[in-house]
């Protein structure tokens, strides 16, 4: 990120020398900074309102209800964890919080889940299958309500800021399934390779 930011500024300035737009570029930078405070102000209200409702969902039991709903899916994804309640509990909490877009609640639960999975990992150097699958779920976006984006859209005067929800659902689910499928394939080949190594070592 450091390099990207530096390159954005340096290359812009260099390009402006060639295109003869030095003054405009500097002015645009200043306007950009000015605009960013306008963006954040027009976006803060809606963002905070959503966070108010999400907090209510967290404390009021809506997230727990969601956890119960998704519990069978978790069992399906992590068959080995059926009897490990602690790890399963953290994973469920993490996924429900992610679904509701409560990032602040999702990350601590996710880290706790990873530490539980780390304890039962038989190959400490390498990420276990469960860890890999859990990470892929978290690197896919599985939000029910993309609050930040909705807030930003209405800040820029969208007539229907929520209209993106249905396509976002379809795309997130497709992306998640594809990522999980890919992960399963990779894990399958990894296991196959490991077996080969064991056989050659053994005999």
């Amino acid at each position, binding site marked *: 990120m450091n390099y990207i930011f530096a390159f954005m500024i340096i290359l812009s300035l260099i390009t402006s020398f060639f295109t003869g737009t030095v003054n405009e570029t500097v002015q645009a930078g200043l306007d950009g900074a000015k605009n960013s405070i306008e963006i954040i102000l027009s976006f803060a209200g809606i963002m905070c309102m959503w966070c108010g409702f999400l907090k209510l969902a967290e404390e009021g039991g809506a997230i727990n209800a969601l956890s119960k709903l998704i519990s069978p899916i978790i069992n399906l994804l992590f068959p080995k964890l059926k009897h490990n309640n602690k790890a399963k509990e953290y994973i469920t909490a993490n996924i429900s919080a992610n679904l509701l877009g409560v990032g602040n609640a999702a990350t601590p639960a996710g880290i706790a889940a990873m530490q539980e999975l780390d304890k039962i990992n038989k190959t400490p150097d390498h990420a276990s299958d469960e860890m890999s699958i859990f990470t892929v779920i978290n690197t896919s976006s599985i939000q029910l309500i993309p609050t930040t984006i909705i807030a*930003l859209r209405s800040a820029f005067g969208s007539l229907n800021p929520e209209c993106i929800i249905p396509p*976002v659902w379809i795309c997130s689910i497709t992306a998640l399934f594809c990522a999980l499928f890919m992960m399963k394939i990779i894990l399958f080949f990894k296991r196959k390779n490991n077996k080969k190594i064991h056989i050659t070592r053994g005999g």
Partner: protein
Amino acid sequence: MSYIVPVIFLLIIIFALRKKIPIYSTFCDGVQWGMKTVIGIFPVLLAITTAVAMMRASGLMDIIIRLISPITDIFHIPSPVLPLALIRPISGGGALGILSDILKEYNPDSLIGIIASVIMGSTETTFYTLMVYFKNTRVKYTKHIIPAAVFGDIVGIIAGVAASTIFF
């Protein structure tokens, strides 16, 4: 479609009423937490909005868009959206800055505005998540996860373009 949001609000409040929690003060707590999040986003947003505005004014953005358009044309991705797709896996705040630039430049309800919003919603800050989640474990090798995670992001981007074009 327009019932999604009110239904979610209703469900949340009904659950909270059943559990008899202080609804009003909890809501206000949430607002405060939201304000903290907004303040947390602000520095990154300012940095990226400034840098992107400079890129646009200097003509660098046009050059980049022209350079990458042969690749994006294959997948029918509008090239103004690609900078967003490139920065998304690395920085969530940075992506938000670029998204706001796109929404300002092309209007949020235009096809490009919608595609950008959907892509933002169906992808994640993949590399950041990978780093944070493995920080407190003994695991040293996570290389095999990256292809799957990045594949998910690519599918999210292509699906985002397809779904937006079909829906709108």
